[in-house]
């Protein structure tokens, strides 16, 4: 097997993971594809080390996350990106505590459909809420690490994540109710 063939196999193994990371942060397929491409071109330059490395997946995920965040801060207005939080009456409303759909809904909706609904709800969140939410829940970063990566205060990160969770819960509940 030549180096190119080995790299192609490596690429096939990790392309979904890298693309998912970029897509969830950027919420834009074309941009996520560009970032994924750049991640793999960088990986090719270090393929000698990554080929046998057990941490290759982690390396790829970190590079995908960093390139996505660079992309967001470079190509979109940072001010609007971190300030487009939705405000208004939503914050004052009382919501039921239950987020997950009722058990019978679980039975009705196939798991794959449910994942797709969650995925779409996540991607429809504004960047200011989606990015910290993804970094916290999917990338496993702590509040202080997220604040450092995004260059904002930890208080803002906590607020944005809370708002993101609330928005996600509302969107998900609406969509699940539509299905019922």
């Amino acid at each position: 097997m030549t180096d190119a063939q080995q790299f192609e196999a490596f690429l096939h193994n990790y392309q979904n993971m890298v693309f998912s990371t970029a897509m969830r942060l950027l919420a834009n397929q074309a941009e996520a594809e560009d970032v994924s491409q750049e991640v793999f071109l960088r990986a090719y330059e270090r393929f000698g080390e990554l080929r046998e490395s057990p941490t290759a997946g982690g390396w790829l995920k970190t590079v995908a996350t960093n390139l996505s965040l660079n992309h967001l801060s470079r190509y979109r207005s940072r001010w609007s990106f971190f300030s487009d939080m939705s405000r208004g009456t939503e914050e004052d409303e009382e919501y039921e505590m239950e987020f997950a759909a009722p058990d019978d809904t679980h039975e009705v909706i196939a798991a794959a459909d449910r994942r797709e609904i969650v995925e779409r709800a996540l991607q429809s969140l504004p960047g200011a809420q989606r990015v910290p939410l993804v970094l916290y829940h999917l990338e496993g970063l702590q509040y202080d690490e997220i604040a450092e990566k995004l260059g904002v205060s930890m208080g803002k990160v906590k607020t944005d994540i809370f708002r993101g969770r609330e928005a996600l819960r509302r969107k998900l509940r609406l969509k699940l109710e539509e299905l019922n």
Partner: protein
Amino acid sequence: MNHEHEKQLEASVQRELQALGDLQAPRGLSARVMGIIEQRAAVPWYRRAWQTWPMGWQAASLTVLLTMFGGLCFGVLELSQAASVSATGQQVSGWFAGLGVLWKTVGVVLDAITMAIQHLGMGVIVGFVLVVAVGYAACFGLGTAYVRFAMARR
């Protein structure tokens, strides 16, 4: 905001998001990446990034660069240790007659610096260099702090 509510919400979101699998990468991604890699492989080695050059050429280019740098350092050292900077300057100004005046000025300045170094003593010179370094670091630090502050305000 109710603390218990926050905890439940966090756990629910964690459960929902963790249940998400990987998305399917676009079909063309792999072909795109491999195409670019093939294109890059077709570029001659000397037009690629230095890190990707063959080891021998990397070593040779590094040796040439270090030799040039060493030669430059040696030249400057020789010049500074010459009996008189002005004497060397006269020789050089003969080569570059048009630059004579400029060179003389430089020579006078260098002579003054040499004289200062000889008369001031090492302590004063080290102190002066330290003051300059601290001043530079202070300017750099204040500039960085200002930029960060300005960016944070945006």
